[in-house]
């Protein structure tokens, strides 16, 4: 768990060594399990959009371990969650979830102390950008795949997914960041 917080070294944003492999795998599995556990919460009237507290996991793994880990956590995690739930294999939604983790990961280069106000504000910004882009890619791909019109895409797919994602992300991400700051300091490894 050595990172800038304890070592003062600059982060390598695109590193993908053994640590990142394990973090990404753990993140994806965690995202799948928590999504699956909360799958009973669905938004009525939306295009099968679930209320997902777990969406904060790819965001957090992106912030903590970089864009590749964030992307894999969202991408693979969503594949696994859909597999566990029996929902099939929807690559464009998996990609969208990957982007939700990727964008906060890009911000990880400028986030040094997880419990500082500035870091939390940057992370919150990344949540909004990541959710907009990720859910945008996934929702708008429905126009290509299903031939859905723009109104359906916006009101049945994009808005329910985007709004719930940012609500969960904005509230839970700072909580996880502060908890992680304490874990990093305490571990001292």
């Amino acid at each position, binding site marked *: 768990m050595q990172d800038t917080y304890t070592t003062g070294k600059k982060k390598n944003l695109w590193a*993908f060594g053994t640590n990142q492999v394990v973090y990404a795998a753990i993140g994806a*599995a965690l995202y799948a399990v928590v999504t699956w556990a909360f799958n009973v919460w669905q938004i009525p009237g939306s295009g099968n959009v679930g209320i997902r507290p777990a969406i904060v996991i790819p965001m957090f793994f992106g912030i903590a371990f970089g864009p590749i880990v964030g992307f894999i956590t969202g991408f693979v995690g969503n594949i*696994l969650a859909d597999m*566990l739930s029996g929902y099939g294999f929807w690559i464009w939604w998996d990609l969208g979830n990957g982007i939700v983790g990727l964008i906060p990961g890009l911000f990880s280069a400028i986030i040094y102390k997880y419990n500082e106000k500035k870091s939390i504000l940057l992370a919150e910004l990344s949540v909004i950008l990541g959710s907009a882009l990720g859910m945008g890619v996934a929702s708008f791909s429905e126009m290509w795949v299903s*031939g859905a019109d723009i109104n359906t895409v916006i009101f049945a797919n994009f808005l329910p997914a985007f709004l719930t994602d940012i609500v969960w992300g904005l509230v839970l991400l700072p*909580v996880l960041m502060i908890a992680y700051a304490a874990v990093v300091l305490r571990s001292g490894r």
Partner: protein
Amino acid sequence: MLVSWNYRFRNSPMDHIDPRARFIFSFAVLFSATATWNPSVLFAVFVISMVWYSLGRLTWKDTRLGWFMISIMLFTMIVINTLITGGGAGGVVPPGGELIWPQGFDLFGRHFMFGLTVERLWFAVSQLMRILSISLIFIMIPYTMDSRAYGVTFSKLGMPDRLAYTMELSFRFIPTLARNFQVTLDAQRARGFELDAAKGNLVQKIRQVAPLLIPVTMNAIVSSEDIANAMDLRGFGQHKRTWLYELKYYWWDWAIIVFSAVMLTTILILAYRFDMKLFSVPQWWYGLFK
């Protein structure tokens, strides 16, 4: 919390098809179905998808949850947006058209005017064929593909080894993390935590999830460093990776790959060379409403 995969060996024809050939075929169908709105081409793709789905020998009981989700999507897109409001047909179906009930119709003693056109109804049929073709192909994957095969499949399809191994590893972590999740949930409940009894405003309700999410996430991260160290000690990533689960192409896999390539190429040529990309209504369909 018992986590189980939906896959089981059924000795179906699908169980004997190489996963790489399956993914190549699945994506060929996806691109074929989305390349055109021509009803004849979409019907052909739909029939191919039905045949492919039947190879999995899946029962309704196996897949009903996935179909329930797809039926909600179909209802929103087709019934509400294409048939009722007409918005779903915008941009594909030209404006105007032939009304099915030009004089309106009577129902429960009242007279209704409903602007559904013959063209929009045909578009709904085309939309149904396209979405069902894609759904039939992709919904069956988790039920018919062994979870041990994903890592090696993506690796052999060209994904970098580390990325493919990440996928493999995440499958293995699922049961452990599900158990940790349940243990944490039980421990928090013993302290009076109730997930469904959240009180307060929206933010307070969302924060109620934190006592569950934080310990599970932090425990997972702390344990991951030990796993990474163990992998490093065993020389992870030093040489090209070998896989315990081996894949082997048989003649029928090559036949499927060739068929996928021919199907996609033919449909792309029909769509872009012979102007069969756009939506059209066959004459016999108009005849049904005379």
